[in-house]
């Protein structure tokens, strides 16, 4: 049995209510336990900050779209190349690194679980293949349903049970984790080069609105008792004035689940824009957070933008085309039959660009104006706002007003008239950062019960020890030490093994893919629904029997079976 005793750890574990206590953590056979035998390996944490392993609840790391981002960007690969060394394979890339690059860098930063934000079901096998080469984290994939024909037909028929049955069948077939709606309805409209512009617009041919899709999918998700709520990328991403669409979307959401939110709205920075055009573009973070503060049923993530080069990629095909028209750089698009779409373009966020400066401020405002840190999680929508390696800087910005002011002085001077950031005094504390980077994610994803996001006995031994003595650092003034501290762990422990030591990855991880299989009665089994099967075989270009992802594609995995109303 593999046992570890971590001594002198300064633990923050918000879920268990531990805030900065110096304690020992015992690990046995991959789990945290009350105590271990005398033969356990002893790690002296030296009073360093010890947190549950980091969890990214919205990132793009694996699958067709991510890989196409790599494929089209040899210039991005030139940054960040490392040779094979010890247990580590070679890596390449900055904003869209290779799978090993992602896995090693996340691990070096203490991250032990990642949710791939957007998996097209037809191409799910690809995501799972890349998961197998992302060895140091547990992985989950949200499944795209935004333009799913069968779903839209069920919505049109107002048949929530049928929608739930389709979701259930698809999740189990493609080994997915939760429901993702990216610009619901808009990706189907993009099949004709069009888009939708509000939640009441009608999707061509299908005669449903984004609002109806969202409402039905929320109810279907709860009917299936999925661990995670509907995960939405709202309509109108990136357009001036889009905050109204975002507020309209939030207003649709009932409070249906006692354990977690009912809607997870992702990269809300890109959806909190005021103005009528780029010339009067401004922040509407105050309006957005006012709504979030009133609605415990909503959790958002930041989608923070950081200055520099990156690659944007999303299932939101029409949005990427609009970006292409703005930037005139290279543009890829990939529509997926009967399901969804996607687009990719490289971008450079510039400090001297007013719009980019405002975007940067909005992300921070969202985090600072959301009262409850459990309702606003730290992300960049990697790599859309910035590559995840920028997270430590974001933590620094959230913890230090001084740092924010120093940065503010370098951005476009007109920014101050368009945002409220300079007047915000709030500085987040260590506990709030722990919520925003792991505990909150675990709760929002519904994986606390399987042992994620906490360090109490029974939890999975996913632990990050950072070279930070929180009693000796004043984050408000010494933000650089905070940034350095979060950049690289002393130890990252995954499933009870030391996987990363000061950035050096030490094992082939072989970690777990977590997927969900709702238990559905035969009556609602879509595999036996003649109309569904007939349409499937007629309009897809793969046969229905070849569609499900076979067990061979799951390496080590955990299936969460849910009790449903179907």
């Amino acid at each position, binding site marked *: 049995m593999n046992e570890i005793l971590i001594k002198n750890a300064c633990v923050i574990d918000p879920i268990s209510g531990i805030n900065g206590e110096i304690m020992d953590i015992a690990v046995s056979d991959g789990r945290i336990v009350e105590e271990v035998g005398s033969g356990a390996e002893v790690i002296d944490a030296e009073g360093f900050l010890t947190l549950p392993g980091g969890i990214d609840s919205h990132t793009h790391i694996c699958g067709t779209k991510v890989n196409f981002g790599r494929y089209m*960007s*040899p*210039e*991005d690969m*030139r940054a960040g190349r490392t040779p094979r060394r010890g247990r580590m394979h070679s890596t390449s890339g900055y904003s869209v690194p290779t799978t090993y690059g992602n896995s090693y860098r996340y691990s070096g930063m203490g991250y032990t679980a990642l949710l791939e934000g957007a998996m097209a079901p037809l191409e799910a096998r690809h995501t799972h293949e890349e998961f197998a080469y992302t060895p140091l984290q547990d992985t989950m994939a949200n499944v795209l349903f935004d333009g799913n024909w069968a779903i839209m037909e069920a919505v049109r028929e107002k048949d929530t049970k049928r929608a739930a049955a389709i979701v259930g069948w698809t999740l189990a077939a493609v080994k997915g984790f939760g429901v993702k709606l990216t610009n619901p309805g808009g990706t189907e409209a993009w099949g004709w080069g069009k888009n939708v512009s509000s939640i009441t617009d009608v999707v061509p041919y299908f005669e449903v609105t984004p609002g109806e899709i969202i409402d039905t999918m929320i109810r279907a998700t709860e009917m299936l008792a999925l661990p995670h709520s509907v995960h939405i990328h709202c309509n109108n991403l990136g357009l001036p004035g889009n905050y109204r669409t975002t507020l309209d979307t939030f207003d649709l959401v009932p409070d249906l689940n006692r354990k977690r939110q009912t809607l997870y709205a992702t990269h809300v920075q890109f959806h909190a824009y005021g103005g009528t055009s780029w010339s009067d573009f401004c922040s509407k973070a105050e309006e957005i957070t006012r709504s979030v503060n009133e609605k415990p049923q909503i959790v958002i993530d930041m989608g923070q933008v950081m200055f520099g080069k990156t690659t944007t990629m999303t299932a939101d095909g029409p949005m990427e085309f609009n970006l292409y028209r703005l930037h005139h*750089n290279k543009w890829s698009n990939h529509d997926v039959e009967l399901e969804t779409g996607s687009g990719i373009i490289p971008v450079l966020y510039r400090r001297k660009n007013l719009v980019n400066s405002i975007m940067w401020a909005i992300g921070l405002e969202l985090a600072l104006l959301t009262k409850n840190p459990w309702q606003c999680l730290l992300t960049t929508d990697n790599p859309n706002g910035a590559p995840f390696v920028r997270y430590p800087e974001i933590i620094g910005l959230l913890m230090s007003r001084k740092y924010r002011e120093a940065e503010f002085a370098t951005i476009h001077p007109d920014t101050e008239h368009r945002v409220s950031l300079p007047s915000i005094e709030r500085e987040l504390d260590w506990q709030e950062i722990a919520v925003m980077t792991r505990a909150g994610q675990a709760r929002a994803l519904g994986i606390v019960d399987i042992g994620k996001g906490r360090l109490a006995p029974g939890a999975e031994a996913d632990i990050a020890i950072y070279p930070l003595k929180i009693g000796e650092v004043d984050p408000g003034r010494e933000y650089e030490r905070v940034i350095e501290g979060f950049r690289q762990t002393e130890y990252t422990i995954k499933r009870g093994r030391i996987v990363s030591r000061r950035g050096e990855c030490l094992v082939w991880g072989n970690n777990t893919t977590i997927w969900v299989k709702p238990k559905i009665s035969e009556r609602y089994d879509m595999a036996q629904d003649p109309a569904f099967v007939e349409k499937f075989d007629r309009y897809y270009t793969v046969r229905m029997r070849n569609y499900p992802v076979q067990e061979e594609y799951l390496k080590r995995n955990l299936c969460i079976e849910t009790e449903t109303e179907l």
Partner: protein
Amino acid sequence: MRVTLQVKPRKKPFLPIEAETIVPAHFLDGTDLVVWKGNRELPLSDVFSVTVEGTAETADEVEITMRGDTSRIKRVGEYMEAGRIVIEDDIGMHCGNFMSGGTIEIGGNADGWLAREMRGGSIICRGNAGNYCASGYRGEKRGMTGGTVEVFGNVGDFAAETLAGGCVVIHGSAGDMAGTEMRGGTLRIEGDCTRVCGNMTAGTCYVFGTVHDMLPTFRRRGTAVHDGVTLTAFTGDIANRGKGNLFVRDYKYMD
């Protein structure tokens, strides 16, 4: 300081040697340098007989002379900032990549990617240069951004691709698609070429010979006299909202 590098005979003469270490600044600290032959790291002295005469305080005072069959030696002068490299015969690929200062003189021919993504300094090639002379890198929008490249012979295809700054002079002829995706800088071709400046958005190109298979998407703007020669002036590439200037003495469309 004068450094002379004489190539020793090799058992597998076609295997490339990667020698980005050969830049003047490195020799200020001695000749204990390494090069790569395929996947093996070798001391510089395994590949060259190295002689050093005199001393130098700065890289500006270092002159490197390369002798013998240097045609398979790649990346000489990469990231060079100062000093001088004289190559007596042919040189392998990627000579002077990312160079920002100093001078490289090549007595013979240069292989592909001479002066790729060059930023400054000057390169003179007495013979011919291969494909992608003074070009950019795969997927990158901007290639050479500064400095000068002068080739006395001919160049291969894709010369000055994505040229964004600096000056490229070709005394002989250019192959196919010189100046394609040009976005700045100056390209001067004394001889002939084919399909020049496709998709250019900015910058200036002069062709004193004949452009064969001239692209149909350049708009004729009249004539201009340059260096005493009357040239037809075009702007383009219209296919790409381009505002580049193309001046040619003679041209033939593929119709």
